[in-house]
Structure formats: structure tokens, C-alpha cells
């Protein structure tokens, strides 16, 4: 049973650049959430995707955008990178209530560590 996978594992960018992070959900899951975890802090919710639409969004600027594909995989895009965007980006998947799953339980991937110079 494949768990949540993320790519790449590490990434180095410079200020002003754009970055795309990728996530494949756990087998059978249909919902993907993204979190940002700064060093020494708890994860902060960015947004959640379900049925290829953004269902809920946290307190992040429009520079952060996402997409969900028909196979439930997802991308997180960050434009005009700032030094403060350096963090671990976590993807989590879950199976929605609509499909008979315990929608509240999210399973996390290993994360992508982004460094902005």
C-alpha cells in the first residue's frame, strides 16, 4: 500500500523565482492538503483540494496556488519567492466522507524542504 509521496525532497531557489512541488496521495485517497512548516514550528495549513477544486484556504497570500489532477495528485506553486518561504512543505491526504472514508484523518508525506537564497 503506497503512502503519500512528494517530490522533490529538497530544492534550492533564489528570491523572485517560482517553484512547483508535487504530491501523490495515499492509494485510494481523494483529498490533498498542503502545509508549511517553518523551522521549530508546527505546520500551518495552506489549502486543501478535493474534486480538483480548492475547498478551504489558510492565511497565505495569492502567491501560493495549487492544483489537483483527475488522478487526485496535486501541485503546490509558489511565485515570487521570498526568503521567508524557506520551510518544509508537507502534503497530507485523506479519504473524504463522501466516499465513505474517515475524512478527518490526514496522512502525511515526507515533505519537500525548500531553501530560498
Amino acid at each position, binding site marked *: 500500500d503506497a503512502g503519500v509521496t512528494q517530490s522533490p525532497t529538497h530544492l534550492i531557489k533564489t528570491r523572485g523565482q517560482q517553484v512547483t512541488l508535487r504530491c501523490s496521495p495515499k492509494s485510494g485517497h481523494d483529498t490533498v492538503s498542503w502545509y508549511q512548516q517553518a523551522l521549530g514550528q508546527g505546520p500551518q495549513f495552506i489549502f*486543501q483540494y478535493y474534486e480538483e477544486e480548492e475547498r*478551504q484556504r489558510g492565511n497565505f497570500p495569492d502567491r501560493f496556488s495549487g492544483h489537483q489532477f483527475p488522478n487526485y495528485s496535486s501541485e503546490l506553486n509558489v511565485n515570487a519567492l521570498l526568503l521567508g518561504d524557506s520551510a518544509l512543505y508537507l502534503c*497530507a491526504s485523506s479519504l473524504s466522507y463522501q466516499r465513505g472514508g474517515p475524512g*478527518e484523518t490526514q496522512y502525511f508525506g515526507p515533505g519537500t524542504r525548500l531553501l530560498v537564497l
Partner: protein
Amino acid sequence: AQTVTQSQPEMSVQEAETVTLSCTYDTSESDYYLFWYKQPPSRQMILVIRQEAYKQQNATENRFSVNFQKAAKSFSLKISDSQLGDAAMYFCAYRLRSGSRLTFGEGTQLTVNP
């Protein structure tokens, strides 16, 4: 807005002993879930245990159990027979039943001494 507070930045325990990690949360809602996640140095966030707020019975998963006090908005994690592999950062998290996001605390770094 819901908030989650973990007042112990660091805790330590001797191998085979028991340790309790504290968590409090603030919400005006009555239907929600609470979770404990473990994040080892590999940074992968691993689900340890979950509790449904409408259930009176405290959740238990092998050596891990919780003490859920709904009125006090307290949700502590007890680890029995601590093992070296339990060393990690532990996060308490809250989720509204009708919501999507997990709200995390600041974490407690647990050290297990041999």
C-alpha cells in the same frame, strides 16, 4: 479561531518509564477531532492517536493513550514503557468535524534516555 497550545517545549524520560505530554486547545465548537502526531528527525509526520470529541472514552493505541477532558479543553498524551524509538517531536492537532484544516500546536521535543 481555534488555537492549540503545548506548554512543554521539551520533555525527557528514561527508557521503560512513562511520560505525559500536555496539550490544551481553545474552541467554541462542540464537534471536533483531536490528534497526536509524531515527527522524528526524518521529518515524516506520523499519526499516533486520534480522539473524537463526542466520545467519552479515551482513545488507546498500544503504549499510547490519551486523557481527554472536554470541559477543560485538555488533551494529554501518555506514553507507557517508553522506547528509544519514541524520541521525536510530538504535535497536538485539532480539526473541526465540518472543516478541512488541521490546527497544530508548537510541538514538544521528547528525548528518551537509555
